[in-house]
């Protein structure tokens, strides 16, 4: 009996959000009186895997098949099922991200297991196995009880603060008999957007709307983002007008971000835009209209012309960094 958690890694390093997932698994293991077995798929150094002990994993089950360096949802599902069988596990955790969202529902369907997608809390065991998650694009929360014997959870990244402890996980190799179907999807081409911080993972985001007036002014957004080490985003009309690439569009019909800081510049704050950003911890709004709805959702507000304020803010960040070296 242990809690199984899928760990993601890139370029030889475990992703920070996977450390969060391991820590979350450890919290559940503690509540349920079990241990944590982290599942690492693909190529990764033992030294890196051992570190999962610092976040509460006792054991790492390593499926060292290089084909798993890319997402193969069916193979990942097979590997997690093999791991769960080996450990006699009833609780399986992945992240609420692109990979986890391809794998966890498959596990749920296969194991007849209830799924909470996008968990925001530890399970409350007094009432069953009740987990909080956002619904209606952040306009409400639901408390979902998993009633099946086996339980699958995807954890919303950036929900819990990481606490690094002591400990070293032991590593066990796990052999899985994959079938041809497990690798049915072939990767033909990978295009990484270079020189930018991936939006879904960004801790800080600077975002521009139609109030930026035109693509020629985006240098102001980029300057501030660069100074902060932030990713850049935009509202839908901005992407529709091709001022910015489509992957930057956030909201109901675009991407979702949950950074620690979201700076919205010249964005009205329509409910469809908020749907993609209202999980942000701190929101700063810069808008010339004091009645802009976004001010109701923000923690800090500045009323004024974005094109004048942005260079000042960038300058202030620069000064701040000078003084806090």
């Amino acid at each position, binding site marked *: 009996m242990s809690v199984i958690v899928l760990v993601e890694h890139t370029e030889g390093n475990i992703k920070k959000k996977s450390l969060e997932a391991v820590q979350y698994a450890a919290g559940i293991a503690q509540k349920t009186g079990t241990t944590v077995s982290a599942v690492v798929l693909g190529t990764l150094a033992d030294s890196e895997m051992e570190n999962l002990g610092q976040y509460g994993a006792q054991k790492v089950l390593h499926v060292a098949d290089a084909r798993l360096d890319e997402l193969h949802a069916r193979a990942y599902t097979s590997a997690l099922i093999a791991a769960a069988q080996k450990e006699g596990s009833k609780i399986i955790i992945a992240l609420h991200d692109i990979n986890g969202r391809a794998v966890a529902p498959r596990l749920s369907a296969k194991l007849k297991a*209830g799924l909470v997608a996008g968990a925001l809390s530890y399970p409350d065991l007094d009432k069953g196995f009740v987990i909080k998650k956002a619904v209606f694009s952040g306009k409400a929360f639901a408390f979902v009880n998993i009633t099946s014997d086996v339980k699958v959870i995807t954890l919303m990244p950036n929900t819990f603060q990481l606490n690094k402890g002591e400990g070293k996980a032991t590593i066990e190799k796990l052999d899985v008999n994959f079938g041809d179907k497990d690798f049915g999807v072939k990767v033909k081409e990978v295009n990484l957007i270079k020189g930018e911080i991936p939006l879904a993972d960004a801790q800080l985001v600077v975002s521009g709307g139609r109030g930026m007036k035109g693509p020629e002014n985006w240098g102001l957004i980029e300057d501030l983002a660069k100074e902060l080490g932030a990713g850049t985003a935009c509202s839908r009309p901005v992407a529709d007008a091709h001022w910015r690439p*489509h992957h930057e569009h956030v909201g109901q019909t*675009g991407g979702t971000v949950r950074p620690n800081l979201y700076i919205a510049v010249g964005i009205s704050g329509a409910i469809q835009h908020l749907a993609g950003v209202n999980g942000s911890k701190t929101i700063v709004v810069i808008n010339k209209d004091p009645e802009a709805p976004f001010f109701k959702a923000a923690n800090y507000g500045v009323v004024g012309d974005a094109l004048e304020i942005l260079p000042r803010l960038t300058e*202030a960040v620069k000064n701040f960094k000078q003084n806090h070296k």
Partner: protein
Amino acid sequence: MKILVCISQVPDTSTKIVLKDNNTAINNQGVTFVINPYDEWYALVRALELKEAGIASDIHLVTVGKADTEPVIRKALALGGDEAIRIDADSHDPYETANYIAEYAKTVGYDLILCGKESIDYNNGAVGAMLAELLDTDYIGFASDIQIEGNTATVKREIEGGEETDTCSLPVVIACQKGVAEARIPNMRGIMAARTRPLKVVTPGTVGSVTEILSYELPPAKAGIKMVSADNMDELVELLHAEAKVI
């Protein structure tokens, strides 16, 4: 080639969520229901494009819901498609929904199943991948481009920090997002034609749910916004550092 498009009914995006019955339910009074935007703008329209290009022969639309979901599935039919199926069940979670759709899909045999990346009510984004598991097919999520040639789908999908192009054989389940299709609105002809297109009602087997929602909560009101003068950006930076602790 037969395509099945999954349609879910959701409250209009601008709906204000109001709770009732001691916070155990959502008050639907006065709420307008629409086709889930990802299902409509991306999955359904791409299916129509594939038919117009002569690649698809039949497009079926499916929804899981009681009779009150008929207006929405009819609206979807007005955009196009040959037949709509309503699986007559009051489903409680994606597991139940996916099982009902899979059960039906097996009786027809679809080459391509398209759904939206998630529905904007419960934001699970789970039905597509569950369907793939139940139908023993591949699944590609977060698709932004879908091309079909013979028995092969070539799909661009989002990955962390970029985009990947994948290929796989049909049948496959694909969850769609922005980029997959060109926006369109139903025309009068479509609306008239939809009236004569069949809406089939199917009684599902018993699956049962594996989760239950015990209660809801509304987010707390923001503690109040702090306004900073446009002339004092040093103060804003200081607040973000010392108070919000984000920089």
